[in-house]
């Protein structure tokens, strides 16, 4: 799990692309943890889809327009918008949406990215505890942590654990 201090901005001499190694993978875990905290664990699938969508959007937009000043804030904003857009489409989630919208109304128009490194660490730790819940079969806890916190795809996890991709849980609730 990455420390926020690793999330360097553009022009980092460590990498010709301006992104430190594993930046996308670390951002994935960070964004999933922060957004799950925001809309609830039962929306984990929607959160993961939104974060994946934001990274894909970054892939095309950053290549043609350059990497933004604050890539982490850019990703958060796009993932947040994808998430609310996705939830809005789902009829059954209207209540959740109302709750989030009401909270957003208090916080102003723009979503507020987590400001403090300690806050992000808390979200990641919270997510790690979720992954270690005893209600989840032991082998699934590892897979879940590698997927949601570390940003590995199920294919990559299966490759490392020598198991079939089909055995991995999509959902935990």
């Amino acid at each position, binding site marked *: 799990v990455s420390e926020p201090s690793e999330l360097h901005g553009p022009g980092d001499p460590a*990498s010709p*692309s301006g992104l430190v190694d594993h930046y*996308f*993978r670390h951002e994935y875990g960070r964004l999933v943890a922060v957004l799950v905290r925001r809309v609830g664990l039962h929306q984990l699938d929607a959160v993961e889809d939104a974060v994946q969508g934001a990274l*894909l959007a970054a892939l*095309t937009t*950053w*290549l*043609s327009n350059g990497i933004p000043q604050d890539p982490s804030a850019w990703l958060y904003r796009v993932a947040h918008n994808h998430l609310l857009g996705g939830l809005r489409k789902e009829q059954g989630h209207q209540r959740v949406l109302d709750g989030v919208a009401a909270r957003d109304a208090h916080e102003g128009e723009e979503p507020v990215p987590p400001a403090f490194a300690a806050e992000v660490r808390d979200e990641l730790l919270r997510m790690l505890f979720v992954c270690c819940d005893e209600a989840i079969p032991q082998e699934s806890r590892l897979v879940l942590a590698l997927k949601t916190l570390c940003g590995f795809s199920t294919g990559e996890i299966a490759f490392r654990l020598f198991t079939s991709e089909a055995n991995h849980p999509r959902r935990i609730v």
Partner: protein
Amino acid sequence: MPKRKYLVLFRSQPTGGGPQPSPSPEQMQQMVVAYKSWMEKFKDDILDLGDKLKSDGRVVTASGVADGPFVEAKEVVGGFMIVSAESYDGAVAVVRACPAVHAPGALLEVRELAGAKM
């Protein structure tokens, strides 16, 4: 030798194996790195990085307008760019080095623009 302009069409053929799985975060970052180094290497040859094309469109003929592109088409044009080179060999060298060549089912068509010697 004067440079000429070439249009590159990104086509894709059906790969047969159903929809491709979405790339993992690590793969996406590798794609950014690969494209960035390719763009840097050929920055004098890539005149216009072009764009992706959205999947819907319109097909216009004298008799009317239909929604397109034609769904029965075996290949779909997914994007374009414009490169400059002295010859087809030079243009092909730029295109062969493009990471998009390695996408499943990718087929890149290179066509010289007829009236555009630079």
